């Protein structure tokens, strides 16, 4: 498929060190400004029509490495907890949440916006708090397993996205901006465990952590956009040991079952996010490598694992 056939794309990038964003940022900027050329045009030296419109593109990023680094610099230990089914996730108490905001919305987001502007895209950074971009219920209690004991941990700053302010993104896209969105999200349900505000009432909304893959899925679904989820591998492999077994295209229930069977570890999160994106309204999800010269373009043109 040619890039021209995609009008609207959400690109998920890691923000972690393992996923170098430089190539992705230049690629994103070239897709946005419409100077994009297809692979055929590139090989033939042909230039695309300069009047051609660019792709409407939204970037969603994570940055848990930056959060861990900031915690470490402040002498705090990142805390990961294991759920009864064995999934490991961050436990985010109030103090950790402050550092999360700093690293994610302050450093990673600002650096990506600056990088995209240097690459030529008119980027605007947003956290899920801005304009209520990503809102939903807070989950302050979580079931965990510690030393074989089942426990309930309370005070987690975490939430599940229930709605996306797509209108804010549409407004920015219509004006030619490239929104760059990230956690935190805005949770409704801050009362539990929150400090009262000056007037004695408790705050209803509170900024909390949410999974960046799911955030990208929610945004792609709300915008009806194709989701390109860049990661450090080239897609989902039927046999992770065999580079010739990349699953290229998933269109049938049988292929989907094979995909979920093949996805292990963090890749199973990508597949869960892909499912949520498709259920939410995204026409297609591509899981592909960030470590390519033009990772978004080549993903749209066929690299990676395409789920429809």
């Amino acid at each position, binding site marked *: 498929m040619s890039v021209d056939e995609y009008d609207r794309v959400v690109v998920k990038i890691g923000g972690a060190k393992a996923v170098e964003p430089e190539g992705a940022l230049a690629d994103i900027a070239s897709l946005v400004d419409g100077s994009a050329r297809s692979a055929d045009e590139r090989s033939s030296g042909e230039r695309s029509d300069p009047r051609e419109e660019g792709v409407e593109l939204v970037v969603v990023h994570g940055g848990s490495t930056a959060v861990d680094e900031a915690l470490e610099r402040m002498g705090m230990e990142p805390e990961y907890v294991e759920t009864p089914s064995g*999934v490991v996730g961050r436990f985010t108490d109030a103090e950790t949440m402050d550092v999360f905001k700093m690293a994610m919305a302050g450093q990673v987001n600002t650096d990506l916006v600056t990088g995209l502007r240097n690459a030529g895209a008119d980027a605007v950074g947003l956290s899920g708090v801005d304009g209520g971009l990503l809102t939903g219920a807070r*989950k302050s209690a979580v079931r965990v397993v510690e030393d074989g*004991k089942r426990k309930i941990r309370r005070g987690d700053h975490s939430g599940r996205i229930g709605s996306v302010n797509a209108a804010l993104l549409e407004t920015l896209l219509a004006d030619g901006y490239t929104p760059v969105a990230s956690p935190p999200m805005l949770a409704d349900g801050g009362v539990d465990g929150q400090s009262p505000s000056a007037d004695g009432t408790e705050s209803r909304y509170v900024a909390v952590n949410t999974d960046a893959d799911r955030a990208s899925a929610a945004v792609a679904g709300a915008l009806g956009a194709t989701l390109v989820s860049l990661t450090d591998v080239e897609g989902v492999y039927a046999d992770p040991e065999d580079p010739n077994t990349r699953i290229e295209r998933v269109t049938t229930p049988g292929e989907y079952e094979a995909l979920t069977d093949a996805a292990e570890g963090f890749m199973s999160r990508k597949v869960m996010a892909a499912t949520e994106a498709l259920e939410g309204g995204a026409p297609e999800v591509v899981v592909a490598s960030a470590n390519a010269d033009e990772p978004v373009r080549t993903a749209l043109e066929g690299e990676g694992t395409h789920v429809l």
Partner: protein
Amino acid sequence: MVDCPECGAGVDLHDDLEVGEIVDCATCGAELEVIGEGPVDLDTAPELEEDWGE
């Protein structure tokens, strides 16, 4: 020995219980959360949907 808030039966408690820990009622099978330790106080543990973190 503390009573199960669900069925009223006595619940056997092991030592070194911690607040937040979940114990099962042997009689009715309810999951009970330790909400206090001195003395031990039990309440029905909330059902919590598992998520997959950040």
